[in-house]
């Protein structure tokens, strides 16, 4: 069904005549006969618009989204309120349907957005240079590793176990390719083990890679941890949550050479994981090694202010195998969403939102750990996410809480076997006090029910009292 094409039988005949062939099939004769499919694709025939809508809506119905369930899950992506103007602006054809601004004279809108976005990310992170965005968080970490190898001519990364598990795994995947070694430094009391980190960094280290707040929600002392990197000439790479940067000291003021992260909390939907964007900021010294597009200010022949893609000699379409990265299509529209969200929050609102998250998180942490069977996993300071331990199997508790329409958090066991009983709970401005109270109540009920259903190890082994049955 080709309702997105316009060629009528009459058009086709005229076009074929102009080409000088009898049928369109003749044009495909350049494909050697054995390589022609020679049968229809084994896919259903096309459907009308209403039918496609119903089909997709039926699939969507079978997902417990953040409208169907109160969402306390974070772990890198958060259920923030995205203001209506973000959708209104990002759905404008002029932003939605062009491609990369290779012709700057007719792409000033997109280029200026990049410039404004770069400014915003640079302000957030406290570093002077930002690119226009990468795919998403974890692959941005891997790109930073690649940059560090080029900058230091070294091949070892010292990585905190507090770095998002997806980032650590992505970095490991890329490292097999570009030939780097990873050394992981463990956590102590929810924070990167400073002594172990200092011991792991040496003259072979290309970069120290941290995250703050780390995966367990803890706010790291980046400056103190980064000293080891400075001492040995390694780059300090810091992954951060942009929504905390109105409150927390920015990585650029803590000695970071690169600050990056998952951009989804800014103006992007959850979308089951993407598309979102990665942000990537660095010191001036790294500007010519940066991955991705960078917009720069310039003038036209009449002296008008304008914007272009700057420093393109870093990029694959010019430098080919010597490029600083292979990235081409990235996430321009997602970065626009972030910029509009940040403009909407504004200088005051951005800070207020950060404070709101910290206050509600502090309340939730206190409220939940007052529940019987819930303990703090660590006591380190947190901003908008925190970890607890449950005294009943986490998956079973989550199922029980889900029945009450709440997604209680992210179970830590898969990524951190040492925290098999751990649950990571995230707060956004959408999570009200009453929802937090409800979570506390639901967790308490679930834990108590689990204890009843599955008596603790000791109880289970106890002999059945006589006359019990």
């Amino acid at each position, binding site marked *: *069904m080709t309702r997105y094409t316009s060629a009528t039988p009459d*058009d*086709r005949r005229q*076009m074929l005549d*102009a*080409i000088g062939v009898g049928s*369109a099939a003749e*044009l495909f004769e*350049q*494909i050697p006969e054995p390589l022609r*499919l020679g049968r*229809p694709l*084994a*896919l259903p025939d096309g*459907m009308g*618009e209403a039918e496609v809508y119903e089909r*997709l809506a039926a*699939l969507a*119905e*079978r997902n*417990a989204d*953040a*409208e*169907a369930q109160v969402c306390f*899950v974070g772990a890198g992506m958060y259920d923030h309120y995205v203001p209506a*103007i973000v959708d209104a602006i990002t759905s404008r054809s*002029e932003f*939605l*349907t062009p*491609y990369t601004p290779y*012709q*700057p*004279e*007719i792409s000033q809108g997109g280029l200026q957005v990049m410039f404004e976005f770069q*400014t915003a990310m640079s302000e957030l992170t406290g570093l002077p240079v930002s690119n226009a965005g990468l795919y998403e968080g974890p*692959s941005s970490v891997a790109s930073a590793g690649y940059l560090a190898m080029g900058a230091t001519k070294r091949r070892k990364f010292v990585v905190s176990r507090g770095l*998002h598990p997806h980032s650590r795994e992505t970095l490991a*995947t*890329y490292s*097999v390719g570009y030939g780097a070694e990873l050394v992981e430094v463990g956590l102590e009391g929810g924070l990167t083990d400073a002594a172990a980190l200092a011991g792991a960094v040496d003259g072979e280290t290309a970069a120290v890679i941290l995250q703050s707040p780390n995966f367990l929600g803890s706010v790291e002392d980046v400056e103190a941890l980064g000293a080891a990197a400075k001492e040995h000439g390694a780059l300090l790479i810091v992954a951060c949550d942009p929504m905390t940067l*109105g409150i927390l*000291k920015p990585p650029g003021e803590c000695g970071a050479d690169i600050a990056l992260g998952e951009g989804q909390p800014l103006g992007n*939907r959850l*979308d*089951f*994981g*993407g598309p979102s964007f990665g942000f990537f900021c660095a010191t001036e010294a790294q500007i010519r090694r940066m991955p991705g597009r960078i917009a720069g200010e310039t003038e036209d*022949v*009449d002296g*008008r*202010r304008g914007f272009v893609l700057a*420093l393109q000699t870093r990029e*694959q379409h010019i430098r080919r195998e*010597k490029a600083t990265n292979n990235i081409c*299509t990235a996430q*321009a*529209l997602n970065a626009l969403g972030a910029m509009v969200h940040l403009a909407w929050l504004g*200088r005051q609102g951005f800070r207020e939102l950060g404070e*709101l998250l910290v206050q509600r998180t*502090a309340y939730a942490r206190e409220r939940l750990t007052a529940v019987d069977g819930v303990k703090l996993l660590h006591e380190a300071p947190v901003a908008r996410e925190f970890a607890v331990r449950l005294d009943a199997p986490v998956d079973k508790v989550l199922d029980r809480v889900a029945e009450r329409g709440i997604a209680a958090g992210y179970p830590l066991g898969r990524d951190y076997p040492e925290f098999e009983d751990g649950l990571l709970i995230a707060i956004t401005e959408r999570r009200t006090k009453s929802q937090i109270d409800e979570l506390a109540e639901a967790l308490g009920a679930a834990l108590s029910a689990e204890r009843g259903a599955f008596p603790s190890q000791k109880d289970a082994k106890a002999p059945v009292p006589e006359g019990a049955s």
Partner: protein
Amino acid sequence: MALTETPMQAERARTIYEKSKPGRRAAALPAAEVPEKPLAELIPENLLRAAPPRLPEIAEPEIVRHYNRLSRRNFDLDSGFYPLGSCTMKHNPRLNERVAALPGHARLHPAQDPRRAQGALELMWLLQESLSEICGLPHVSLQPSAGSHGELAGLLLTRAYHADRGEERTKVLAPDTSHGTNPASVTMAGYEVVKVATDEQGGVEMDDLRAKLAENEGEVACLMLTNPNTLGVFDENIAEIAKLIHEAGGTLYYDGANLNAVMGHSRPGDMGFDIVHVNLHKSFSQPHGGGGPGAGPIAVSDRIEPYLPRPQVVRRAGSNGHGPGFDLDFERPKSIGRLRGFQGNFGVFVRSYAYILSLGGDGLSEASETAVLNANYLKARLAEGRAGERLPIAFDRHCMHEFVLSGKPMKRDLGLATLDLAKRLLDFGFHPPTVYFPLLVEEALMVEPTETETKESLDAFAEAIEKILAEAEDNPELAKNAPYTTPVRRLDEVKATRQPVVRQQFG
């Protein structure tokens, strides 16, 4: 030409920061509702920020106006013909935006338990199955975020495949005319690029391929190709190429940038490719967004499957009275691991799956046929008149979905570079073709009209080219100083690179 400023030109660019004024705001945030404590009691003072980031201070009406104005300084596919070669600028159906925005998709947390995300996993599985059929390869991973990410994935898969066989190979062959992402991905994956010469049809130069394979015996890990090639011509030697690479122990990688030419007509898997990436933002109608988002799923053969990224979406047989269900499979011991966070660009998958459902197998095949028809028609139109003389086709035979012209005679006879022609086209309301690529054609113009353009658009484009060439015979300066009507005129790109100003300077 009289240089009167257009109203848009007269309106000088001002950034949102320059429109900011202390005290203005847009956001209304909820009250904390909880007992508040001093910040420094919750987080040590030395970890707190002293001065807030200098974000703009501006009210909602002016934010909307600002970005609305900026949007009008963009040319876009919905405004006009956009024949950017190798980019497949086809119509972006709005139905796809609507279904992607359904809360069940848009507000689904990526860490949701698979049992409570069955619709999303089923959609991903259905898309995998569809792409598998279109590519002619049995297994698909949706994880890569774009074409270049798919390339990197393919090379890491190749590395894992060889490593599993106890081999370490160091070189990857790629045509000297390949897309720039190919060699850049090769380096990033830790391989060395060996360039293979291109024949005058844009195909692989077979003697050179044999020579490079002999010179690098036992060291060639992979050959990366597009087919149709960068001249828009189907490489008739592909079966022989596949045989040579496979005999040499390498994998054959398909850059799917040109897949829109052959959907339902020929399949990369049947051509002998082991690994294929598909640009969902090209053939499968995801909007290009001014440079993304896209997605670059990969389809692979049986021998590559064990190494696919983790997690993989799988369908599990029903048990205990439950029907079949969908799950994320993390237990993949030979997997190359993750390439990114979570499961991939799901929102793109929704749009592309909606597109595949809308067109169906029959429609995809017709879309490719019409794309090829449109390209050949436009090529025929441009072979007439002045264009035929000044802008000859690089290789004169039927093309697939795109074709390449050479501006060499135009430059020689009229003093007009391809860049000048491209800039003059802006005044006529067209996005120019891809220029100066592929490198083997001097003053190249790569034209890809796509199937969603009307014959009238193609005619109008051909007429604009004719007109520009005609006016250049009398006055070549007209094109050399173009454009005149765009929001800004030619920009100083050298300055932006020599003295980069990449962010707002605050006073």
